Each structure stands twice: as structure tokens, then as C-alpha cells.
């Protein structure tokens, strides 16, 4: 994993570094003092809100009923786990994140491999492919909801009609989750493609040439040279994509308004907090998201890295 590797590179650079140079002009603390504020802020700003969330998650706190504020024990957690809506939102978050990241990584990989070839009009195709990345996400969700999915004047049914099909399905109510996933895949594939394309183009050419001369098939070249090289770029894309898609709010809020069984956790927290004013419960749900994503991330990292170890 790129991130974990880079933590250890910190140690490696200690060994590589020349012995420390004796400093004469400034004492050690004075040279570092300017950096202290950032570090102190770093620790306070990152950790305090989460600690506060943790505390609130054990409190009974509805902002409409300030007098009833008090210690609630694990009530909020019990509520979160017994509330079927909240439970399904946990499942939705996982389904949404996993499917969007995987599909857009695969599509992005295919597109990056295609764009790595030289062909006339490649720049034009690349520009077209990047377009979704430059649309404001909320606009992208609106585009999908109204321009593409709309049963009366949407592009999908327009094309179906033009092709001579009579069917005019209402896409969002027939397949709500797929509708949300498709819009997010459209939005995220260009990002994955950019990362993977940069990875492909930083690949040294000589080993590939050598392998070709030795009679390696294009598939073998991909499997044993290109893929291992791309690994860290795939991980980077997966990591960044997961971070942003777990917290995705725009698409769910705009396309389905959390209805039709597509509400994910960010949406549920928003609702609990902003509409039901249940601060305690919203915090408990948040803590569960964090705990869950840590467990899943650790597990996923183990699985992925063990897969790669076998591949080596």
C-alpha cells in the first residue's frame, strides 16, 4: 500500500541521510519554532472534533429539547443498530462505494490503456473523456436526473424512442441504486483514468521491448510488466476514490433524495441532524461509520496486499 510504504520510507531516509551537521547559528528549538503552530493545530483540529463527536454520541441531545440533554449511555448506539433505516444506510454506503470505485477503476484502466496508444485524434478523445471530471458534482447529479433519466424528455428514453422502442421506463424508480452508481461512475472514471494514464506513461519502455523480443504476448506484457507497475497507481486511485465516495452526499441527495432505499450514511446523518435534530444519534452513526471504515480498510488492505504477494 502506497501510503503505508511511505510511512516506512521516513525511516529509510534516516539511514540514507548524512550524519547530522552541527548547527552554529541557531539553537535547535529556534529553527523549528515556526513550524510548531501548524503541528499543534494539526493535532487539535483533527482530533478534537472527533473526540467531541465521541462524547456526544453517548449523550441524549435533541436540539429542539435542550432541557432533556443528558447522559444516554449506549442508547444511541442501540438505536442506530436497531433502526432498519440506519442499518440499510450502512449497507448502501458500502455497496455504493465498492461498486463505484471498482467499476470506475476498471473503466479508467481500459481507457488509460487505450489512450496510451498513439492514434490520430487522441487529444480530442482525451478531452472528451475528461469532461465529466470538470462538471460540478451537484450539476452532474442534476444532469443525470433530469437530462438523462427523465422519462419524458430525458436522453435515454429519447434514444430508445428514436431507435423504435416503445418502452419508456422510469429509470430512477425502477433501478434507483444503479442510477446513482452510474452517475458516480461517469463522474469518477476520468479521474481514475488520469491517474492510471500518468502511471502508464511513467513506465520504462526498455523492459517491454526486451520482453517483446523474447516473444512475450501482449497479455503477458500486461500481466507481468504493466500491471505490477500500475499497482501503486491503482491503489492511489482506489484510496482517493474511496475517501470521497464514502462521504458522497450530492448524488444521493439530488437523484433520489435518499428515497427508494438508496439513503447512505452521510445522507442519514444529515437527516438525523438537520431534520430530526437528534445530535446524539447522528454522532453515534458517525462513530460507527468511522469504526466500520477502519475495519473494512484494514481488511481490504490485507486481502489486496496478499493477492499481490501471490502474484509476485
Amino acid at each position: 500500500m502506497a501510503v503505508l510504504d511511505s510511512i516506512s520510507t521516513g525511516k529509510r531516509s534516516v539511514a540514507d541521510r548524512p550524519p547530522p551537521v552541527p548547527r552554529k547559528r541557531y539553537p535547535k528549538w529556534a529553527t523549528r519554532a515556526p513550524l510548531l503552530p501548524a503541528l499543534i493545530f494539526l493535532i487539535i483540529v483533527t482530533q478534537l472534533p472527533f473526540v467531541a463527536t465521541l462524547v456526544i454520541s453517548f449523550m441524549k441531545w435533541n436540539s429542539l429539547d435542550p432541557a432533556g440533554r443528558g447522559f444516554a449511555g449506549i442508547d444511541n448506539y442501540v438505536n442506530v443498530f436497531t433502526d432498519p433505516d440506519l442499518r440499510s444506510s450502512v449497507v448502501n454506503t458500502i455497496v455504493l462505494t465498492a461498486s463505484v470505485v471498482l467499476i470506475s477503476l476498471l473503466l479508467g484502466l481500459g481507457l488509460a490503456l487505450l489512450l496510451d496508444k498513439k492514434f490520430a485524434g487522441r487529444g480530442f478523445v482525451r478531452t472528451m473523456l475528461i469532461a465529466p471530471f470538470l462538471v460540478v458534482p451537484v450539476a452532474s447529479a442534476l444532469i443525470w436526473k433530469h437530462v438523462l433519466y427523465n422519462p419524458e424528455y430525458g436522453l435515454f428514453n429519447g434514444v430508445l424512442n428514436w431507435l423504435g422502442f416503445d418502452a419508456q421506463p422510469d429509470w430512477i424508480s425502477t433501478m434507483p441504486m444503479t442510477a446513482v452508481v452510474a452517475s458516480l461512475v461517469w463522474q469518477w472514471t476520468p479521474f481514475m483514468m488520469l491517474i492510471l494514464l500518468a502511471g502508464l506513461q511513467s513506465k520504462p519502455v526498455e523492459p517491454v521491448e526486451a520482453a517483446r523480443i523474447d516473444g512475450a504476448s501482449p497479455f503477458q506484457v500486461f500481466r507481468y510488466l504493466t500491471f505490477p507497475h500500475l499497482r501503486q497507481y491503482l491503489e492511489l486511485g482506489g484510496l482517493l476514490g474511496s475517501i470521497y465516495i464514502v462521504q458522497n452526499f450530492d448524488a444521493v441527495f439530488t437523484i433520489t433524495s435518499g428515497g427508494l432505499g438508496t439513503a447512505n450514511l452521510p445522507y442519514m446523518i444529515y437527516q438525523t441532524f438537520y431534520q430530526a435534530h437528534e445530535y446524539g444519534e447522528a454522532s453515534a452513526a458517525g462513530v460507527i461509520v468511522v469504526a466500520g471504515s477502519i475495519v473494512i480498510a484494514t481488511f481490504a488492505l490485507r486481502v489486496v496486499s496478499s493477492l499481490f504477494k501471490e502474484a509476485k
Partner: protein
Amino acid sequence: MTATLAKPPADIAWEPEQPRRKRNVGGFLNWVATHALGLALGLMFATPVVFVFLTAVMSDDQAFTADLWPREWHWENFVEVFDKAPLFQYLVNSLTYSLLATAGMLISSIPAAYALAKLQWRGRNVAFILVIGAMMLPPQVVAVPLYDTWSSLGLTGTLWPLIVPYFLFDAFSIFLLRQFMLTIPQSYVDAARVDGCSEFQALVRIIVPMAKPGIAATALFCFLFTWNDYFGPLLYTGEVKDQWTLSLALATFKGMHIVQWNSSMAVTFLTMIPAVVLFVFAQKSFVKGITFTGVKG
């Protein structure tokens, strides 16, 4: 900040160095397949955006049909939307949020990234793990205590709760900048120290100039993220219309002032412009920065 972003890279085209391959018997079929596939996929991804544009220039009535091509070209739609909603106000709000947040991010994150990448100190790895942890924390999770704090300061209903944190800390930017700074050899910093630079001078004179592509990419990311942000403005300014940003206004646009679909699409198209301009100018830095390919590129 703007100076860094606005400076056009020498070679925007960003072509890979690859020897031309010999065409064999299957070469022609391969050529056709590549072109057809490239064009088809390109169209697939670009069509919705093109369709947005085409709808934006349609007449009010035609926009509600399934027509693909405008019968008449109503370019004035792009101008009229400014009369139908206080778009200019929203634009100013969006720019205030994005530009101040990006500036704040640069002030707070560059020194922090330097401390994580180039200084040796006890607890550095712990601090870095905290940064990664903060980066993975969905903003909705900590929304409750933060909202409560800002509300007791009387600042909810403004964009300040969204801007101020960037002057203190932005985990994602620190992460990206640190990764980029790691690719700069430690010997440069050591040399600066030998020459009597303080850490701060080493940072400003040596590291910042060398990390320019990384800084540009991080700034671009920060700008795009805040420009695109929907949850933040919705949470803090949802009920105060004159503080809305463009992305927030966009979502409520249809029901709010107008029912015309073409105007909605015109606004959608207009909101893309800053991202397109930034991306065209900073594409090379962006790719370089995000993949940490190092100072030589």
C-alpha cells in the same frame, strides 16, 4: 496562489515518449478498432455535457421535449440567467469560499507537510497517521460538534465555518504535499542548513520552489473541492439565501426562480468554466503532482 496556477506550462499537450511501433498485418484492423473504440467511449462520456450545452441554447418550450438538436439557437439564455437569479452574488460567494480556502490551505499545509516530510522528530509517524485518519474522516461525522461550536460563535449562516478551518489545517492537502516533498532529495535541505538557513528559510527558499508542481496540483484540488462542495454550504448557509454558493444555488435553481429547463442548463454550463480554465492551464502540474513523479517529471 493564482500566479502559480495561471502560469501556463510550456507543453500542455503532455505527450508520452514512445517509439513508433511497426505496423504488421493485423495493424490496420487494430488501427480501426482503436479509433472506433476511442471515439465511441469519448462520445459516451462527453455526450451528457454536450447535451447540457444544446439544451441551454434551446427555446423555453423545446427544452422540455426529447429533441437533441436546438431548432433555434438562443445564445441570450446565457445572459438572461443573470437576471433571473442573483447569480453574480452566488459567484462572488463561491469565489470567496474557494479562493480564501485555497489561500488558507497553502499557508497552513505547506509548513505542516514540510515538517512531516523533511524534519526528523519523535512522533512524526504518529502525526502522519493522524493526518491520514483525518483525511478519511467523512465531514458529516464531525458535523455535529463543529456546527454546535460555530453556532455558539454566531457564525452559522455565513461561509466562515467553511473557510476558517483551511487556515488551520487540511488533511488531504498535507498528505499530497508531503508525498510530493518526499520526492525532493533530503540533501537539498541539508545543504541549506549547512549554509546557515533556518528551517523556515529552507522551506521558503528551497522546498517551495522545487515543489511547485505539487503545490499547484494541491491548490487545484483544493479549489475544485471547495468549488464543488455542496454539503458544507448546505449545512451552514442552507437557510440564508444571499450566502449561497453556485453549487448550492444550482440544486435549488429549478424550483426557486424559474421553471425553464434551458436556464438551468445554462447555469450548469457556466459553472463548469472555472474548472475548465484551471484544468487547461494546470493539467500538466496536476498529473505530475497527483502521481508524485518527482522533481524531474
